[in-house]
Each structure stands twice: as C-alpha cells, then as structure tokens.
C-alpha cells in the first residue's frame, strides 16, 4: 500500500514509516507528512483542507508500538511508525465492513460508485464481503432542495460536510446529533429539511462528501464507466498524487 519515493530533505527532520524515512515540517501530522512523501495511509474523515477530526480511525497506525490516529498525531523526529501491516489492515478492513453494514450502501445502483472513497478504500483493503449482519437502518431521503439531494443511507459520519459548512461556508448547515450507534447527520433548519436552510449548491459542503450523501440533483450517471475517479487508479495511488 506504500507507493512513491521518499526524499528526506537535507538536514530536515524525519520519522520512519514501515521502515522508510519520511521527512516532515514542524506541525505536520503523520498522515500529512506521509501523503506528501508519497506514502498512502488509508483514511476517510481526513481531508487536507480541514482540521483533523479523528473519527473514522481508518488511519490508525502504530507509533513506537502504540496505536494512534495518524491524522491527529503530530509527526516527531525518530518516531517508528507502522502502517501497512497485516494486523492494521485487518482492523481497517473490519472498520470499513462495519461502515458498510451500519448504513445502506448499494454500490450497484449508487451514482457515486467509482467516485466513492468508501468503495475505493474497501477495494484497496481487499474487502470481499460485508462480513457482518446488515443493520438496514431506515433513513429517508431529503430531496427538498431544488439542486441537491441528501441520501442519509450512505452517511459514514466523517463530519466533512459539518466542518466545511462551518469553517468554509460560515453557515453550519450540517451537524451530527445523537451519540454512539444513534449518531446521525442532521440539517440545521427549523424543519430539519435542507430546503429550509441557507445551503447552496455552490457551498464547499456541497462538494466535500466522500460518499454518496450530498449529491447534485439530475447529474446521476453522467460520467461513463472508465472515466470515474477510481477507474484509472486505485485510491492508494491517487491520494499520494495530491488528489484527495
């Protein structure tokens, strides 16, 4: 899963990732430094434009033998980081399987298929089946907005839309409500409907969803098979080219 060539800066600080030196600048997290150096660490809630959230736990690595999230842990010189190991990848695969069964993810008819980070990550981790029993939760769509559809069935609670709306759009249209297994995405409007919020299709929050929750209406399957994001290269290769 590690790709690219590491090039430690002369005189710069570095840590080792799976036995190879990774340079970093002060303040960078492990995942920021790794991706910049061409080393892929699986992740879903991390986005290079937003502050760390540390919720999906997919980027869990071992630092000097102890597990921690690579998206929240700042890089330090001399760290010994393990990421691409059978043990960690087994745990990541289990996390992805749990995400699949907690929601309603029907890739065969999902317009996000081929562009979906959850699907691409599952492929990359070699997930062959959901393994766990499906929850089949009942999550009605919100199609009230004229330009954007919300399909909550696919939400993985990464909170990227929450952060984008709050930090970039300055609107706080989205929020996470409930706790534990009851946590779910909500729309901050009096009615709870997107149409009654000040959300716009031009908002950053409209384009940041890694799965198929926030979708522009009437686009559907406009992009043919073969030209979708992950048709040409797996996520582990695309992410280290600076495309998240």
């Amino acid at each position: 899963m590690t790709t690219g060539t590491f090039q430690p800066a002369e005189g710069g600080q570095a840590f080792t990732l799976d036995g190879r030196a990774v340079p970093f600048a002060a303040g960078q997290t492990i995942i920021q430094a790794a991706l910049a150096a061409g080393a892929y660490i699986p992740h879903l809630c991390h986005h290079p434009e937003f502050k760390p959230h540390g919720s999906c736990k997919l980027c869990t690595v071992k630092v000097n033998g102890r597990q921690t999230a690579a998206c929240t842990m700042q890089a330090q010189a001399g760290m010994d980081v393990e990421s691409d190991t059978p043990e960690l990848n087994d745990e990541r695969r289990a996390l992805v399987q749990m995400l699949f069964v907690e929601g309603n993810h029907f890739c065969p008819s999902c317009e996000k298929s081929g562009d979906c980070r959850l699907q691409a990550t599952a492929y990359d981790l070699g997930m062959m089946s959901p393994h766990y029993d499906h929850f089949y939760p009942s999550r009605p769509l919100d199609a009230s907005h004229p330009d954007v559809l919300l399909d909550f069935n696919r939400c993985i609670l990464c909170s990227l839309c929450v952060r984008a709306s709050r930090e970039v759009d300055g609107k706080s249209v989205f929020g996470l409500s409930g706790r534990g297994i009851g946590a779910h995405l909500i729309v901050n409007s009096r009615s709870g409907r997107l149409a009654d919020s000040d959300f716009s299709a031009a908002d950053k929050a409209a384009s940041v969803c890694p799965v198929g929750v926030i979708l522009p209406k009437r686009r559907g399957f406009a992009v043919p098979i073969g030209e979708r994001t992950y048709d040409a290269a797996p996520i582990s290769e695309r992410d280290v080219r600076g495309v998240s």
Partner: protein
Amino acid sequence: MSYHLETAEHPETLRRVAIDPVSRVEGHGKVTILLDEQNRVHQVRLHIVEFRGFERFIRGRPYWEVPVMVQRLCGICPVSHHLAASKALDLIVGARRLTPTAEKIRRLMHYGQMLQSHALHFFHLCSPDLLFGFDSEVGRRNIVGVAGKYPETARKGVLLRKFGQEVIRVTAGKRVHGTGSVPGGVNKSLSIGERDALLAEIYHVIAWSREAVRMARELHEADPALYNSFGICRSHFMSLIGTDEQGHGALDFYHGSLRARDDAGGLLFDQVDYAGYDRYIEEEVKPWSYMKFPYFRSLGPANGWYKVGPLARVQNCDRIPTPFAEAERREFIDYAGGTPLHAPLAYHWARMIEMLHAAETIKDLLHDPDILGDALTTQGARQSEGVGVIEAPRGTLFHHYRVDDDDLVTLCNLIVSTTNNNQAMNEAVRHVARRYLHGREITEGLLNHIEVAIRAFDPCLSCATHALGRMPLSAELVDADGQVIHRLSSGG
C-alpha cells in the same frame, strides 16, 4: 378465470409431482402436476414463486438512479430494463426527441443485447435439446455435449454471444449492468477504435447468424410433426411495430407503437401509443403464482391472453428492414402458409431470424457517423409521468413511472416480457403434460419435455442448467399425507 387443467376438481385425492426448480425465471419457478392413480393429468401449473418487489423499492428514489437500479432485475437482459426505464425517464426530463447520437448508441446497445441474448438462448440453452433429442442421455444434453459433437456450432454460438456482449460494453461501459443510458440520452458515444474493432468482426457475425437461421429452420423442417404441434397454444400476438418515423409496419426492437393480431392473423389493434397501455392491457392475479396474467382488456381474461417475443414479432410486422433477415422472414411466413404459427418450437426459428436482423442492424449502425458524435443528451420541459416500452429479447417490456416535484419516484409499474407469456407458457405446459405424461410413469426425459416447452419462450429459464452442463431438476411424488414416495433428480 380458470382454464382446462388449471385447477383440479378434487386436488386432495391426487398425487402431486413438482419440478422445482424448473430453473430460473428472474429468480425461481416451478411446475406442479396433479395425477390420479392411473397417472392421468388433472392439473398443471407453472408457478413463479419468488417475490421481487422492485416496483415498491424504486418508490422514493431519485429518478436518475432508476435506469441503473432496475436493470438488476435481470442478469441476462439488463439492457432491456436499462433502456425501457431510460425511455420513460426521457419523457420526465422533457427529452421527447433524443440527439441522433444518443438514439443510435442506444439502438446499438439494444441490438447488441438482442444478439447476445438470442445466441445464448439458442446455442447454450436449447441446442442440446434440439440436436440430441428431448429425452436423450441427460449427461450429454448440455453445451459441453454440443461442443463435443458439434464443435463448430458451439464455437460460433459462443463467439456470437461474445460479440453482442462487446457491443454492450462499448456502449454501456460494462458487458453486464452498465450505465450508458441516462435520462435524456447517453453518457458516451463510440471512439473510432471501438467502432473499428466491432467492424472487424461484424461480417463474420452476420455470416454465422445466417447459418444459425438455416440450422433452426432445418431442425424445424426435419420434423414438422413435432415442431408444429409440440406444446401448441393458439393465442393472440402483440409487439411493438415501427411507426412512420422508423418505417411503418417494420420490425423495430427499440421503439414504435403497439400492434396486436388475433390467432388467425387479423388485426386487433394497431398504431396504439404505448403511453396508454393500461387502456388495452389488464393483469389478472392468481393465488398460486407471483406472476400476473395479462390480457387484452377488450376481450377479457378468458379470451384476451396473448403471446409476445420473437414468434409474435416476426409474424406481427409487415417487413424486416434488413435484407437477409427480411428474406428469412418471407420464408418463415410462406412456411406458415398464410396463418400464424403458434407452436412454441417455432420460436427458435423466429428468434434466429431476429438475431440475424440484430447483426445486420449493428453493421448499419457501425457505418453511421452519428455513433461517433458528442451531442449526448437533451432535455426540455419537465414532466411528471413517463411510459417507456421496448421489445426485449423475450417480448414487450413496459416501464411506467411517476415522479414528484422533488425528483423522487412515486409510482413504478413494470410489465416484464415473461409476464406477457404467462398464460401461453401455462397452456404449453398443459398441452405437453397431456400428450406426454398422461398415464405414464414419470421419467427425467418426460420431465424435460415440460422444460423444453417452457424454454422455447425463453423466459430466462435454465441459465445455470444447460450452460453449466447440469440440470438441477427434481421431481417428487408426494402422497396425500405429504410423504415423499418417489423422487427423481438429475444433475444439480
């Protein structure tokens, strides 16, 4: 409404033989036969026992998702559902006329689908019965057996299907369950490389299709006593017929208006806009099957049932707009002698004529520069309701949707091709049971006669059986207490 041999007077006194599964009909089907102590047949039913529910779970979904979602109804002819849904949703997005590129790419996809499906059915599923005999040695009655004794026939059958699948791949993105057709058009056209790769093969495909028609015809003509009577059920016919735009009265698989003929070939209705299909067709529900029984509303359930698919289409149209297939159609009509053929085994001959027409049409489309164009979609004033109808390999396929102001589907009604043939298949099975099983001890070969009759209609049955060289077929004799007293099984 109940037909002869549909419901026995005293079923509690009879023994039940079940063929379960017959094989797949978009899931699961079985035949039950009730016999008395002398093995006389009192009741025969073809049941579709699996409930799918697509019409329900489509509701509440965004309309642009539907063409990709509904094609999962079928793994053999998903393109038909993909396109029928797209045609209905074209109307929702106000695309009453597609761009030339979009229409021709869809036609290419659909005719590729017809080619591969018909080749699969004839060569993989039916040729073992037709070449070796209905009650021939079961171990050889499969495509592997055909490949052993008739290697060139099997090879060409495989290559014909492969070509059709490739046409689907370049138009839809995948050989099975692609995404090429979208409301208002398509999402890709062909590259020059894709076109040229198909052109390099198409003349072989046409030649092999002509050989296939000859083979089907020679099989039919070699044993007219069998082929003209086996499982025969007289009924009306229905199919799409090309409108003036496509060539009035011409065979057209993609678009047209509805035409129906009675069992003697007289017109029942013609040039009917399929958007009003529900004024002409009604469906009866019977408690013993999940598949409905459609009939012409004006004639009622007793007299209004009909056949669809190749046998209906080839005899319903005035002409086939490609030369080789048209010549074969004329031969077929001449053979029939002025009145329609109703024998299920005549489906095979008609089906191969259609396969030849599909191959010729693909050739014509590949020479049309519009398939390389880049005007892929169009739209107009948004509508709330749309009906899309297409001639699928197995017959006329109806998709009907309503969409609300939020773009979510509120109604989905599907009449799938196999459903149209429900009564005809039941009647064919009853005819075969009366003729071959009545008063005899049941054997695997006799049971296969039942399957041969069903298979002639190509209702997505038996994909896994002949194709894999196995016949997962079992028959049980159950006494009045439910005890199995005799069991026969084969393959599987």
